[in-house]
């Protein structure tokens, strides 16, 4: 059933009795033309574009839990294209363009809201760095506006402009940046892939990767073996374990990132605000909750929850920036497993095994990448060649020195 306004009205009149499940619950076949391991945002979008752009529809997504139960449903939903380095820029620029057409493309309301993202700066040096970044963004064809202190005050009057430690000198506004409803992105891609014939198989954990004479031949799963000549590993924080099934060690260390949401409040924060010096960022969800977070806890973890020191740090940073939030009650906090690469940038590449591909290393920033990652991974799996906008996301770039160190902090897992 197509989703549209008429259907909504009609279903209202007939007591909502006509809605069908958004996707099928198929039994896995014994063989497919391609298998995607991982039913997160990236796995689902890969399957969708394999079917849509490359005509492969005898394919399956194997998800060990439920669709969207991983990071795609745990992130703070920021979507932006304000990257600086060639290699990252064109990729995220492509992704943002896909976001802008996503709802029509998927026939699904992903609540993409381009409310504008403001990155604050607090010194002349930081301002110069943002001017440079803004110019790079504009040169790429994206948008960036430099705001002075008064310009920021106009948009964000509730910040503390008197604090001495991090005086607000201005900000870089990225008007096309914003947020989207994270679960809806997973559900939208799932439904659209299903409609193109993709089998979405939940509760199906991949436990082994079959390789014969250097070629992938299929996978072992908790629902039995499934054959396929092409397999994509798209499992985010679990990439280390799945790659190990193919005898690989990845340049990835999994860390925990926490996030927080308050009780629902009336509209008060209209933008996404990033306070980099305090390791704090915030936006308000459409339900009214203030959604915010900070840095990684900074140690290897699969616990999908963090520790109290980072909770305290994030709360302190929030209070420093906008004391008005002090009375809001935090409802929940949670954590996700972040696949950190040494340079903080992702990997979409072939592996040493013929027919086996990897899409990982999204660090804490892979939600915005969901459309372009699927687009490029599908291109790679279908054609065997990296997509032009993802050509720098190579698996061996740490050995060759072709790093994509966006923050310039060094090639080490815990520095990003």
């Amino acid at each position: 059933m197509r989703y549209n306004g008429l259907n909504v009205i009609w279903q209202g009149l007939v007591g909502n009795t006509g809605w069908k499940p958004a996707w099928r619950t198929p039994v896995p076949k014994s063989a497919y033309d391609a298998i995607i391991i991982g039913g997160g945002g990236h796995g689902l979008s890969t399957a969708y574009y394999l079917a849509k752009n490359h005509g492969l529809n005898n394919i399956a997504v194997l998800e060990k839990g439920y669709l969207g139960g991983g990071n795609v449903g745990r992130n703070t939903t920021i979507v932006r294209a304000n990257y600086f380095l060639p290699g990252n820029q064109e990729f995220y620029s492509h992704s943002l363009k896909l976001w802008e057409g996503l709802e029509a493309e998927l026939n699904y309301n992903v609540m993409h809201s381009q409310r504008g993202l403001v990155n604050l700066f607090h010194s002349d040096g930081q301002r110069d760095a943002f001017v440079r970044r803004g110019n790079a963004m504009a040169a790429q064809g994206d948008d960036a506006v430099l705001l002075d202190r008064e310009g920021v005050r106009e948009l964000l009057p509730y910040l503390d402009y008197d604090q001495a430690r991090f005086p607000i000198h201005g900000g870089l506004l990225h008007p096309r940046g914003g947020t989207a409803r994270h679960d809806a992105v997973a559900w939208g891609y799932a439904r659209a892939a299903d409609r193109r014939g993709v089998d979405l198989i939940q509760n199906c954990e991949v436990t082994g990767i079959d390789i014969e004479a250097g070629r992938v031949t299929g996978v072992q799963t908790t629902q039995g073996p499934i054959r396929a000549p092409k397999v994509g590993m798209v499992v985010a924080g679990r990439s280390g374990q799945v790659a190990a099934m193919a005898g690989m060690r990845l340049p990835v260390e999994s860390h925990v990132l926490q996030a927080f949401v308050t009780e629902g409040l009336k509209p008060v924060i209209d933008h996404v605000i990033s306070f980099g010096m305090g390791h704090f960022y915030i936006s308000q969800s459409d339900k009214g909750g203030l959604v915010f977070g900070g840095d990684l806890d900074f140690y290897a973890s699969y616990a999908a929850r963090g520790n109290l020191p980072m909770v305290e740090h994030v709360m302190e940073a929030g209070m420093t920036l906008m004391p008005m939030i002090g009375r809001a009650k935090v409802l929940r906090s949670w954590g996700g497993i972040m696949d950190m690469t040494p340079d903080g940038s992702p990997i979409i590449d072939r592996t040493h095994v013929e027919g086996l591909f990897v899409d990982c290393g999204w660090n804490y920033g892979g939600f915005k990448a969901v459309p372009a990652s699927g687009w490029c991974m599908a291109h790679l799996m279908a054609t065997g060649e990296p997509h032009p906008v993802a050509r720098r996301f190579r698996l061996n770039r740490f050995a060759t020195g072709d790093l994509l160190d966006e923050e310039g902090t060094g090639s080490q897992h815990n520095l990003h």
Partner: protein
Amino acid sequence: MRITCPLCGSRDRREFYYYGAADYLARPAEGAGLEAWDAYLHLRDNPAGMTKDLWYHEAGCSAWIEVTRDTTSHAVLSSRLVAAVESADLPGRSAPARKKAAPRKKKGTS
């Protein structure tokens, strides 16, 4: 999370700087090839479960410590001085750079 420093006892996690997997102790020998250096610096087992990693008691006694932890529960199981690991397990290999770890830089939104 509390970490036991062999010299100072059980201390708040905030006193420690996390460096990375204990792989950093197995520094390739002089003249080792590119692959060995790539593996040493970048490639990780990244285990879900028991792991050994290096922590620096920055706000304490300045010792480098090898901590055995469970990455799925954050339980800290044991710890020993890197100096002791070196002489016990890794003859002839040098410890990570002893200089103080650089302060963390700012980051943007996620």
